[in-house]
Each structure stands twice: as C-alpha cells, then as structure tokens.
C-alpha cells in the first residue's frame, strides 16, 4: 500500500528562526519516541482485541498530542514554503501520521475525525499517498449523498481521494451564503 512519490519538502525560509532544527530535535527526542511507541502499541492492541489490556502505559496523552501538533505545524509550514527535497522532514511527517492514526483509534485528547484527517494529510506530505487516500475514505460516511451540508473533513476527504470532479459538487453547499431561515434555525 505504501508507495513513495516525489517530495514536496524543503524550506530554508521556514527555518529562518531554527524552527526546522527544533522540530527535528523534538522528533528525535528519546522520551517522545518511547511515548509514541507506547501509543502505537496501545492502538494496535485496541484494534486487535477491541480494547487495550490493563497495563501501565508509559505516556502522557496531553504531552504527546501537544508535541505531535508542534511537529505537524512545522511539517505543514515546510510543505507550503519550499519545493526542495527534505527527506528528514518527510520522515517526521510519517511519524506524525502514524501518531494521529493511533490517536484516531484511542480517542485520547483528540476527536477521531480530526485525528484521521491530520493522519491523512501527514501521510500525503510524507509521500504515502495510498495511505492518505485510504484514511480519507474513512472520513466520509458510506453512501453519503451530500444532500445536506458536508463537513469540512468530508470535503477534504474527497480531495485527498483525488475525486477532483466530485469535489466542486460536494463543496458547493459550503460556498453558498447561509439563508436567513437556516441562520435562525441553526442559531439554536
């Protein structure tokens, strides 16, 4: 399923204040790596067994989520800023994707849909487009007709699956200004 494509990474301008160097140092932090291994193990066991076994898991959900968020923000900034190759940041993106995917299973300090979305985007940036498309499918309820207003996650899910002809149709309701009646209804 995993297939690498060309990198979108790079970014000397993002690194003007040493942001990339700090992110790489954080990503390489032994304690964070240990915590991430615990998160992945717990998520895997939860998927296989239905629930995680009683065990003193050695990680702080709030700290790991916070740190992964920091790394994710840097990866996105690099991806937007430069087109030269940064394989080191790609590796960070892959680790982030795996972390978000695990938190989508565990639901700790995160919402499942947000975690899935972040994982799909991180896989995309890491060059794992097949993984991104696979996760993006899970953002959309099966046989969804999109008669009602789609969520932002669903629209992004359609985009990440590269359903580019379907995308404007799905997104169209979001581009319309709200009606007065809908506003009055939604206010409560």
């Amino acid at each position: 399923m995993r297939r690498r494509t060309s990198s979108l990474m790079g970014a000397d301008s993002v690194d003007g204040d040493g942001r990339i160097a700090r992110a790489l140092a954080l990503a390489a932090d032994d304690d964070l790596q240990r915590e991430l291994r615990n998160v992945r193990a717990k998520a895997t066991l939860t998927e296989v067994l239905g629930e995680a076994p009683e065990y003193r898991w050695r990680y702080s959900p709030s700290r790991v989520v916070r740190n992964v968020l920091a790394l994710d923000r840097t990866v996105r900034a690099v991806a937007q800023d430069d087109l030269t190759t940064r394989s080191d940041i790609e590796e960070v993106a892959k680790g982030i994707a795996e972390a978000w995917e695990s938190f989508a299973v565990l639901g700790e300090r995160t919402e499942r849909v947000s975690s899935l979305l972040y994982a799909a985007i991180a896989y995309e940036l890491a060059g794992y487009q097949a993984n991104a498309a696979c996760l993006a499918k899970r953002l959309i309820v099966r046989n969804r007709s999109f008669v009602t207003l789609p969520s932002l996650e669903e629209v992004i899910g359609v985009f990440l699956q590269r359903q580019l002809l379907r995308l404007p149709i799905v997104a169209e309701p979001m581009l319309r200004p709200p009606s007065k009646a809908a506003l009055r209804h939604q206010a409560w």
Partner: protein
Amino acid sequence: MFVGQRLDEQNHQLSSAFERYLSQRTGLEGHETYRIFLVWDRDQWREEVLGKLEALPQVIEPLTSHIVHISDLVTVVEASFDRVGIELIEDEEEDQ
C-alpha cells in the same frame, strides 16, 4: 491547530510562545487549564447544556465553561454578515 494557524496568519506576538508551548516536554504538569466559550441567545439558553457537557466521557480537566448571553443573537449575527459583505439568501422554501 486552528489557533496556531490563526496566530501565524496574523503574525501575532504570541505565535512563537505558542510554538514553544507545543514543543515543550517538561514543566507543564499541573499548569494546563482548558476553557470553553459558548455564545448563546439569552432567551434560548438552557442549563441542561452544561449537564450534557459534564456527561461527556472524556472531558478535559481542569475545564472552565464561560457562557456569554446575548439578546437577539440572530440580529447580531446578521449584522456581522452584513459588515463583512456577505449577503444572506432570502428563503424561498420557508413557506413550503
């Protein structure tokens, strides 16, 4: 993610401090607090909203809820749309 992006877009003075906070590995134990702000029409507010919040299985702690009551909130929202130049659609289906 949203808060960080907004700070970055505005080149806000707290942006780099927020970045350091996210990256921090130690020293935050017991210092983090969480807040929810709800903006609600005064006549439509129901106390049971807070009950539903407390009933959620994984509420983050310590959590403080702030509820802002505004009279005739719809008028405020409509005026806000008008201010940013968005014209609301008159409803054709309302009588159907």
